[in-house]
Structure formats: structure tokens, C-alpha cells
């Protein structure tokens, strides 16, 4: 699968990268990314994840050829 990150996440990960592992849902993907870079745990826990322009929930089944977008919180104020 392909992962694309935005904004502050680019300080922790490459903007885009490939993952060739058996990861089937969003919680598993998040755990794997926190293993890669534990300093990103706080921000990753406040992110939403999206596939094909739609936010996904914990149950969404990721496919091998999906691109997953990791969406940090908006600017808010």
C-alpha cells in the first residue's frame, strides 16, 4: 500500500512512501507507523485516515493497492 502524509507529519515521515506488509486496517497501520517513529505517536493519535477522498473508520479493510492519506487536525482557530 501507499501512504501519503501532510503538514506536520512531514516532519516525521517522508511525504509519500510504500509499505509492503500485511496491514489490514487503520489501527494496525497507525501502530506500525508509531513503531517506525515513536515521536509521532501523539500526532498520529489525533489524525484521521482517508482512502479515495473519504475518511475511514477502524473497521475499514485496507487493500494492497490502496493509497492511504493521513490527515492531521485542521488549523481550528
Amino acid at each position, binding site marked *: 500500500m501507499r501512504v501519503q502524509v*501532510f*503538514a506536520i507529519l512531514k516532519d516525521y515521515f517522508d511525504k509519500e512512501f510504500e509499505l509492503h506488509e500485511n496491514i489490514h486496517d487503520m489501527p494496525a497501520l497507525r501502530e506500525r507507523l508509531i513503531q517506525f517513529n515513536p515521536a509521532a505517536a501523539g500526532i498520529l493519535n*489525533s489524525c*484521521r485516515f482517508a482512502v479515495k477522498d473519504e475518511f475511514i473508520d477502524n473497521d475499514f479493510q485496507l487493500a494492497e493497492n490502496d493509497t492511504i492519506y493521513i*490527515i492531521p*487536525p*485542521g*488549523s481550528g482557530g
Partner: protein
Amino acid sequence: MTPSILSHQEVADELALITSNPLDIVGLLARAHHPQAGAIVLFSGDVRNHSNEKSVAYLEYEAHESMASGMIAAIVEEAKSKWKLTIALATHRVGKVAVCESAVVVITASAHRHEAFVANRYIIDKIKHEVPIWKCEYFADGTKEWGGNCNCHTITGEVGKHVYEL
């Protein structure tokens, strides 16, 4: 071909919801005069010269553009139908934005002023909290800082749930 005469709705539909060009506030406002609108409210989010007590050089906005466009369009349509607005439009810049320039504009128009005010605030709050657009402040001292002021999940206890939904 004769030039086509566009209705207000058609003109609004052509608007770029995400753009790297300076926002033409005057042009946007010109679209909003409508013979059934008694009230027009315009919001412009401008870049300030100071933030967190530091001098700001400029801002840079990044977006997941296809998601952001779709979400802004949906928020605007939801507000338009909820408050029976005659006009509703929103547009957000990406890329570098200078101090005093506008990063986001929302215009609402309705028969009476209450709806235009409430809907305008609703649209800008939703855009700022929910739409995947992020700002990075570049300071005069050479440092930078990603904005992420929406910490609603620390209050609501749920990622993607915001204080105004409580």
C-alpha cells in the same frame, strides 16, 4: 457562439474552492448582490503580522486538494439549504500567503440578516476544523511552525468530533 448569461447559481458553481491565486474579494462580493438578498455577510481570514508573540514573515497553506474541495462544496451546500440562503460561497488559498492577504473568504446572503450571520460562522468554523487544509507559519527569525490549533478531540474525547458538536 453567443456569450451565455449565467444565473447566480451557475456563476457560483464555477468558483475554485481551492486556489493558489490571490483571492479576489471584490469580484466575489460582486457575485453576492442578489435581488432577493436583504443581507450579505462576508468573512475574510487574513494573515496577521504576529502570532504567538513572534513576527510573521508569511504563511504557507497545504491541502489535500480533492478532499478539501469536495468538503468545502458539501459544507456550503449544507448551509445553503439549512438556512435557505440566496448565495453561499467559500474559497480557500493554498501556497504562500503574505501578511494582510486573505487566506479564506466566505460569503452568505439571505432575505434577513440572522441566517446570513449564523450560516457564515457555521461554514468558516467547519472549514477551519474539519477540512484538510493546514497552515505553516514562517517567522521573521527563520523558524516555522505548523498550525494545529484544533485540539477539539482533547475536549470531546473523539478524533474528528469538534467542540461545536457537543
